[in-house]
């Protein structure tokens, strides 16, 4: 049974003072469902309706029509809210509090047991990488990355079953991104439904089980990130510069034997078109077998990125 159900959601905004400029359609009949333990990325260009969708799911916005339910209840049901965590994109936290006081405040608001308050807050701050000194500093003096970590820590209070993350790794350093991945992996294993709204496509592809592409208020495509295994792509293969680079004719021949196509050379990278994951594996095996010193291989462009560059969606509804 899905944890969150969105049925034919329509939401529009009044344009101009008192709506004299008509209405702007933000969501034009979105239908989605989210399973327990699933991490779903919502991606799309600016103004696509991603934030509006999140706003409706959190009960901040009232849909014009359509149905929203979380575990069969209304989105603003207080029992649902007690199991919800939210990391906003705009990190306007209570600047006058210390990080620890901010955590205590949200712990109390979340109706979590008072006797574990200090322990829970300390553990979460530690988990997101905020040390003791930082936790007693005023939030107003936090850097962008620290604010992001603090906001993530408050979102995780009480092990939420529904977690909404709006641009969760914006401004976070690489160590923070690794921590974020570990936390998400733990949440997913614990059965939490996580919805991520982000423009960091590579990260979405990495941490999400499923991706929903929203454009002009509609779901343009929806697919599992694992489905990428069956998609054609251009592979950028970096060759060692310490050894002589094979001639283009030789690379063309090796690629053809492996069922791939040599697309060109731009030192130190060679570009090959492969049909799918198996094709990429065959190509790399063939290159290594031919004595070519491969140091690195990566897709030239993620399939999520291709959505933004305007590649048409296939008729099956896959992402690329």
């Amino acid at each position, binding site marked *: 049974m899905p944890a969150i159900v969105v049925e034919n959601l329509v939401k529009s905004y009044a344009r101009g003072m008192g709506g004299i400029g008509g209405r702007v359609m933000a969501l034009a009949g979105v239908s989605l469902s989210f399973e327990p333990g699933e991490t779903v990325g919502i991606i799309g260009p600016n103004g696509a309706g991603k934030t509006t969708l999140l706003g409706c799911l959190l009960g901040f916005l009232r849909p014009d029509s359509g149905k929203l339910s979380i575990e069969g209840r209304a989105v603003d049901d207080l029992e649902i809210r007690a199991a919800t965590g939210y990391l906003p994109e705009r990190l306007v936290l209570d600047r006058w509090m210390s990080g620890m006081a901010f955590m205590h405040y949200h712990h109390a*608001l979340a109706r979590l047991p008072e006797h574990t308050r200090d322990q829970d807050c300390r553990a979460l701050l530690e988990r997101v990488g905020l040390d003791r000194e930082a936790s007693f500093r005023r939030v107003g003096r936090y850097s962008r990355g620290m604010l992001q970590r603090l906001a993530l820590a408050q979102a995780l209070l009480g092990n939420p079953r529904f977690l909404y993350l709006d641009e969760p790794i914006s401004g976070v350093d690489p160590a923070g991104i690794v921590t974020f991945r570990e936390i998400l992996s733990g949440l997913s294993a614990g059965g939490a439904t996580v919805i991520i709204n982000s423009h960091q496509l590579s990260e979405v592809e990495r941490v999400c089980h499923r991706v929903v592409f929203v454009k002009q208020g509609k779901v343009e495509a929806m697919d599992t990130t694992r489905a990428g295994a069956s998609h054609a792509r251009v592979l950028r293969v970096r060759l060692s510069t310490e050894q002589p680079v094979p001639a283009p004719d030789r690379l063309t021949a090796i690629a053809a034997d492996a069922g791939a196509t040599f697309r060109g050379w731009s030192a130190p990278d060679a570009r090959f078109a492969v049909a799918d994951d198996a094709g990429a594996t065959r190509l790399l095996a063939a290159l290594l077998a031919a004595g070519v010193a491969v140091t690195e291989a990566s897709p030239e462009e993620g399939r999520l990125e291709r959505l933004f560059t305007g590649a048409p969606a296939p008729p099956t509804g896959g992402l690329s």
Partner: protein
Amino acid sequence: MNRTLIAAFLRQRLTSPMRVGLILLITVFPLGAAVIMNSASPLGGMAGPIALILAAGAIGQDVSSGTLQLLLVRPVSRPSVVVHRWLASVIGAMGISVGTLLLGILALLARGTHPDFLDLARMVLESACSAAGSAAVMVMLSTLVGGLGDVGLLAAALIFTQLLIGLGTVEHWDVLLRACTEVQGVLSPQLSWEWMVHRMPPSWFAVTSWASTVTLALAVGIARLNRRELSYAAS
């Protein structure tokens, strides 16, 4: 009662230098006047203005900044936010005004003046009613406009009605005079407890009028916040 909401709101208000400065101005001068005049009467009118200062921007500032969204993700209902912010403003205003009153009484006692107990009780009760009324109106206005727009709205309404009162007085337009006086009464609801000192029966009309104004202001505030969309995507 959600003590967390009340405590956090009061702590936030009392860490704002501007608000603290204004509250100090409101309390220090009456205290000085009470000592100079050797009377507790100047200490009576503080609670209403203090409640206004504490309640200004109670909802609007958090809506504009986005902190209200984070609060409403928690199991806290919108009506509860309105009621607790009103309650916190009243508690804060009463705490400060009663504290100042006690200081004034101590100063008067030290000078050998013994204030009348009934008169002091009247002052406290009038302060409580004034604080509750002013805070309710301010919280309601705060749900209508963002930031500190409620202060501007209240000031504009008071100035406008005062101008109309002036016009009504000059032109002898009794209906306008009466209407504007009523509007001003709604904007700063107060209840006199003079009857208690004079051992007379209370004016039930005044009591009902004050109570209905406070209730209406809170009801409008709750209805407005319930309908308000809370997302920067909406603006």
